[in-house]
């Protein structure tokens, strides 16, 4: 049994999602290898080699892999699958883009957003926005899984796997990269942050969102999230969206401000350890999942919270 884990990285640093996906791979059992595909892979591979329980780290380097062109990444993985019984891919937007290509080429099912490994062929995954959990058993000879990183603990460091390079496939002829606009932020990554502060439609404008949510997030060293309503209204950028179709987060502390708690939003944050809701509508559904609810207008409550945090030495 051998399992290939696809590393999550930004062509500069290895992301924690990789460690979490390795945990899922170790639960399947057998040898676990990591593939780092992109540019600047040497430093990323060196970090991946330190993850405990990993046999070896493969690197493949090309511009297209660095741009995350699905055809290139998919072809690379399919070419390696002769040596593996399963491939585990972090369920990021990048991973979801190429993973079904691997499954289709291998003529096997993709098992999406796995949250639990029951055995080497049986997995649990959320369906219907997390309102149901499906346990599926795969009869396919090779398994293609995307793994929801928030459902697994990060594998510990302490390994010293060897690093090998493998050839990158040729550039796909029918796709051309034009450009990429990635927002650089000093805040922690939304998917990996220990604390997330999210704002909803109640903010009323992008200016208000920035004025209310961001200082609180900065005070707590938190990532900033948003409900779909806030993103649709243009108060926050699209990659802030927490929910069924946005990012799924499970921080230690999730603070929802002016968010009513639509099913689709709850799907993205209900596995957080502690949930705080601040909303002036005491009947808002968000209070049904909140550990601590404060029924108050955010306009008064957030400045008070800032002062209370300062008074408590946070």
């Amino acid at each position, binding site marked *: 049994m051998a399992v290939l884990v696809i590393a999550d990285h930004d062509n500069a640093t290895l992301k924690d999602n990789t460690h979490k996906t390795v945990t899922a791979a170790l639960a399947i059992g057998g040898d676990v290898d990591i593939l780092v595909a992109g540019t600047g892979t040497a430093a990323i591979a060196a970090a991946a080699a330190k993850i405990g329980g990993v046999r070896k780290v493969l690197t493949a380097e090309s511009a297209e892999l660095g741009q995350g062109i699905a055809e290139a990444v998919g072809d690379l993985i399919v070419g390696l699958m002769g040596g593996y019984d399963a491939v585990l891919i972090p369920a990021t937007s990048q991973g979801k883009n190429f993973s*079904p290509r691997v499954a289709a080429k291998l003529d096997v099912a993709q098992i999406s957003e796995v949250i639990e490994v029951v055995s080497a062929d049986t997995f649990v995954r959320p369906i219907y926005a997390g*309102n149901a959990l499906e346990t*599926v058993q795969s009869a396919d000879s090779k398994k293609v899984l995307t793994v929801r990183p928030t459902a697994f603990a990060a594998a510990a460091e302490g390994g010293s796997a060897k690093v090998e390079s493998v050839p990158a496939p040729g550039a796909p002829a029918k796709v051309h990269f034009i450009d990429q606009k990635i*927002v650089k932020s000093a805040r922690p990554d939304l998917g990996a942050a220990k604390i997330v502060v999210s704002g909803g439609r109640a903010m009323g404008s992008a200016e208000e969102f920035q004025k209310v949510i961001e200082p609180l997030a900065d005070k707590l060293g938190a990532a900033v999230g948003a409900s779909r309503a806030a993103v649709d209204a243009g108060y926050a950028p699209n*990659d802030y969206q927490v929910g069924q*179709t946005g990012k799924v987060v499970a921080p230690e502390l999730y603070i929802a401000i002016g968010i009513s708690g639509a099913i689709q939003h709850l799907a993205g944050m209900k596995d957080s350890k502690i949930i705080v809701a601040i909303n002036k509508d005491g009947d808002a559904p968000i209070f049904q999942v909140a550990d*601590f609810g404060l029924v108050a207008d955010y306009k008064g409550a957030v400045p008070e919270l800032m002062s209370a945090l300062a008074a408590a030495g946070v």
Partner: protein
Amino acid sequence: MKVLVPVKRVIDYNVKARVKADQTGVDLANVKMSMNPFCEIAVEEAVRLKEKGVATEVVSVSIGPIQAQETLRTSLAMGADRAILVQTDLDLEPLAIAKVLKAIIAEENPDLVLMGKQAIDGDNNATGQMLATLLDWPQATFASELTVEGGKAKVTREVDGGLQTLEVNLPAVVTADLRLNEPRYASLPNIMKAKKKPLDIKELGSLGVDAAPRLKVVKVTEPPKRTAGIKVETAADLVTNLKTAGVL
């Protein structure tokens, strides 16, 4: 240019799914069903391409039970020209759906397939990518902006941390994200007109596609319930509680 739009009939966006007591699945009896929201966005985009004079024909296709005709009628009322139902009572997996669509595409020869990035029942987010792979067409997923010109589609995609723009040669598969557009409501006259538009029904068996399931559903269960906690009176109380809980 011909655009093919696959659409799926799913539990309505606003209805909370309930797991059946025997753990065999989600109870869909007497539940409101609608077009998958991402499919609606794809139909809207296709109709806009037609209104701009870029597309000449929009064909919607659904794979599902006979009631999926209603979903197809919705697409016709939004502005699709004709519809195809591949009738089956089986609940097909994304790979099988992609194979059925490939068979339909061999008959229809569209220049562009526009579809939702995921269905809100299975939440797989796989069919579009699988279809592109089986066809050996380029893919551009999670589109938030689409322009078609000179045999190419320029697609802005929602990616981790921002936006990416790709240009793909046609024919291609593009999957729609939430912010591609806001779908229209069909007007009453258009709903009436849609009843007269052609809707062709094919049997799944007539397509000669291997649609056998690859996964066995062992069980479907309720997720662990989160219970409501306490209401605090002031922000200071909140901070005290968070300190006690050890998260600050």
